Each structure stands twice: as C-alpha cells, then as structure tokens.
C-alpha cells in the first residue's frame, strides 16, 4: 500500500482488493504532544464502520503501540489502515534507526528506550510484545539506519 523510496525492505500489499476502507495517516517522529491521536482516529473509524468491540479494542492497542514506536524512535512514519470484510490490516513504515535484532525486540521487556522516554512511562519493552499479543498475524522487517516496516492483521470473526 505504501512506498517509501529510501527504504529497501519488502513492502507487502493488501491480499484483497475487496476493501471497505483504506487510508494513510502521517506520524511525526519525536512529537509526543500528538502521540496517540492517530490511534484515536482509527478507533473512531473502526467503531463507525461497526466492527465488533473486541476487534476495535485490539486494533486500538496495536495502532497505539505502533504510533508510539514511530514517535519515540523514528523521524517520521506512515500508518495505513485497510479494512476488508474479514480483516483489519495495519501497515506502518518509518524512516528511522531501524532495529538490529527484530526477534529480540519482540521479546517482552527488551527496549532501547532512553531514560527520558522511560520516565514518561514508555519504553518498558511492551510495545512489540503487545502488538504480537493482540494481533492474529504480525510481520516485522527492519533495516538499520533506514527504517522499520510492520504489517499487522486482526481477523474479524
């Protein structure tokens, strides 16, 4: 769905053309004053579409965590929301430092957050772990000094 010229990592496309809704949302790195606004907007959109509460709840959590990651670590990012009759798909691509060891980063408690970020109650190593817990499919790829790409799928029962 999204293309980022500077990033040479594989960007998958939505598996179906049969979508109900799709949109891109820009995320500004380092701007904590707006952190969470994209997730809040997406939650409202999903509610308006009339998805089950559990799907909305899971989507809000994974969107929030992805958004906070971009704000905390990257220069900028784009979140793409695509709703199909069977899935909510969230793709996040950022331009930033990347993650050297994505498997390690997925583990609960692992974090490279600065002291300042930790003092705000972020950076506890729960972000990617929460995304993993509250999604049905979660792929992550990253290139150091380029950026990170997340693809998250939540099934609609």
């Amino acid at each position, binding site marked *: 769905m999204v293309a980022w010229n500077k990033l040479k990592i594989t960007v998958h496309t939505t598996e179906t053309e049969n979508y109900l809704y799709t949109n891109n949302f820009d995320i500004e790195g380092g701007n*904590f*004053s707006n*952190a*969470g*606004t994209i*997730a*809040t907007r997406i*939650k409202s959109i999903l509610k308006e579409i009339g998805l089950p509460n559990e799907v909305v709840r899971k989507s*809000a*959590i994974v969107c*929030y*965590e992805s958004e*906070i990651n971009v704000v905390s670590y990257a220069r900028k990012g784009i979140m793409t929301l695509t709703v199909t009759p069977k899935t909510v798909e969230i793709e996040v691509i950022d331009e930033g430092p990347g993650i050297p060891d994505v498997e390690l980063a997925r583990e609960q408690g692992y974090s490279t957050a600065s002291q300042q970020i930790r003092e*705000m*109650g*972020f950076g*506890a190593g*729960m*972000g990617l772990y*929460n995304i993993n*817990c*509250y999604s049905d499919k979660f792929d992550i790829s990253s290139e150091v000094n380029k950026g990170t790409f997340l693809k998250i799928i939540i099934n609609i029962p």
Partner: protein
Amino acid sequence: MDIETIAKKLNLEVRSASDRLKNNVTGGYTGDLLSDVMANSHEGDIWITRQVHQNIVAVATLKEHAGIILVNSCEPARDTLEKAIQEKIPIMVSSLPAFELTGAIYNLLGKKD
C-alpha cells in the same frame, strides 16, 4: 458509581472536566506504564497513576476511561490540563499514595455491587 460520589468520599480535587463527573465508573486500573495500561485497562475504568504528562490524556481518551486520578498530591502538567479540558477527561488529585487510593476505590466499588 459516578466520579462525583468517589471524589466526595475520597476528598479528590477536580482539575479538569468538572462537567463530566457523572461519568460512570465501572472499574479501575492502577499503573504508570502506559503500554500496560493500554493493554489491560478497560472502558469505564478510573485510572490511578503517578504520571502527570499529557500522554495520559491520550491513553485515557483511547481507552475511554471514566477519569484519571493522580496520587501523592501530584499536579497535572499545564499541557496535560489543556488536553484534558479539550478531550473532556476528568483529572483529579488525591493526597493518598496509589496503594491506599486503589484500596479505597476498590472497596467503594465493591460496596456498590
């Protein structure tokens, strides 16, 4: 039980959205790690925390919390208050530490049921 009742019984000082004190409190969550609160709190919870920065309002808005109570007489930062007024999230201040406040609210909600 609404926020107003809890605020009166526990001498909470209301700092924002005083017109939203009829919000119904269905449960509570205590925590300072935002990812933990995101993952484990529920709609209608009263959130008890020591964090005072503006991102608590984003979490409370997203999770549709009934309100936020700051412990140990901690005051919300100015931009936190501005955001809370804008998002209509009641923020209250308690002189109690988190453990005691959580226990008191737990008992109040328990009596109601």
